[in-house]
């Protein structure tokens, strides 16, 4: 049985959310809200109200990055200083904490930022070929609601979209 990927484009955001809310309420049996992907021109926290909590692991990466930057930074500096014993400076110790703290701080932030970006790239599944079901209207002012459903449920879904004043429905058959 082939799978259908269906995207409804809504110009009224409230209607789109209402449609998702209907899916969430299992208006179409076997279609779960977890399958819904929303494509939106803007970021709005209200989506979470209808989609429910979905994970984003960015902060963990950030924490890891910051911790890594901190330890790596300090150890890097200290070990560089400890291999470069020729150079006592102005009566300062070989490993001077105040200056290393400053640099460690910078390294913490640098790696925190870098890891955050990496986690963004990984986590948001960006940097890959764009979904064929994409409308340029999404980047303008319409919201797309995308689901992958069994062939049998496709019509029900379209009906549900139509009930919510869908502007356009795009569909493709997978496999």
């Amino acid at each position, binding site marked *: 049985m082939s799978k259908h990927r269906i995207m409804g484009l809504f110009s009224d955001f409230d209607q789109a959310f209402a449609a998702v809310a209907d899916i969430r309420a299992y208006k179409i049996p076997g279609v779960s809200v977890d399958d819904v992907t929303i494509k939106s021109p803007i970021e709005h926290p209200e989506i979470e109200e209808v989609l429910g909590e979905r994970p984003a692991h960015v902060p963990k990466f950030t924490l890891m990055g910051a911790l890594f930057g901190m330890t790596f930074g300090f*150890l890097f500096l200290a070990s560089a200083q*400890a291999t470069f014993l020729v150079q006592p*400076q102005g009566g*300062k110790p070989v490993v001077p904490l105040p200056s290393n703290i400053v640099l460690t701080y910078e390294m913490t932030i640098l790696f925190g930022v870098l890891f955050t970006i990496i986690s963004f790239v990984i986590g948001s599944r960006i940097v890959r070929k764009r979904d064929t079901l994409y409308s340029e209207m999404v980047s303008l002012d319409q919201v797309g609601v995308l689901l992958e459903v069994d062939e049998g449920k496709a019509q029900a879904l379209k009906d549900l979209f139509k009930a919510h004043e869908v502007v356009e429905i795009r569909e493709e058959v997978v496999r």
Partner: protein
Amino acid sequence: MSLKNILENWSNYRRDREAGGHHEYEHMWGMAIDLNKCIGCNACAVACYAENNLAIVGKEKMTKKQGMHWMRIERYWGEPDLDKLSQSSSQYQEHGANFLPMMCQQCNAATCEPVCPVAATFHTPDGLNAQVYNRCIGSRYCSNNCPYRLRYFNFYSYYESSWPAPLHLQLNPDLSVRDKGVMEKCTFCIQRIRVAKDKARMEDRVEKEAAVIKVGDSTFRAAAGRGKLEDMEFQTACQQTCPTGAIVFGDMLNPESQVRKLWDGHQVSLGKTKQTKQNPEKRGYRVFEALNTDPCVMYMERVREV
């Protein structure tokens, strides 16, 4: 570059100067300059030009204060110490001039050292404030941070202009000629120190034992295998030429050295920001001591009959 190294030596690496430092010293070169004897004749300054390949910059660049006088004789007219004593203020410069030979003070807590981004200036096991010309990138931070203002920058490439042939044949091959963009300063004639130390090594004059040597308030850990040099075995160019013998140079770690005796005799001690002398009338002092640079050059006050 190993973690083990850091962990094992952590307390060692954390020791600063006051705690004896991580460093083991071979010598602690110091100087004592008697302003009672200095006549400001400039012989030392010219000897320094001759010994250390100092560039001649010419009038225009001297106008812009881009000169290279490692050893400079400063001359002051004001004499705050005597004005208090002499009752009448004369319309004449009655007590003559105040001359001050100023060269790198080879501070033990040098302000120039920590600010160099590439560690081109650092402290050597001889207690000297080294300047490695070929490492210098010319950020000039060290000079900005030197309260004595005795670091000089090569604002131009002086090789062509300063030593037109055959003047270049005079250049001392024992040390580099500095090109543009490099900071330079007095080295206490490192090339002469080098020759003397090498000679001591070649003749197997070596101190076998490590030692802890106290110089005034400072403690120095002296390395085993350091060369054993006689006092006055060699002289710096300025000391050598000084017609009055006002400049005395030597190893502070050697209790027999003239310079050490002068420091001790004048109750001036390394490692202090303010000298606590038993006899406050002793003439020794260090310039800008209160800045905690811990210079290795002691001056002895000028004397005037009033």
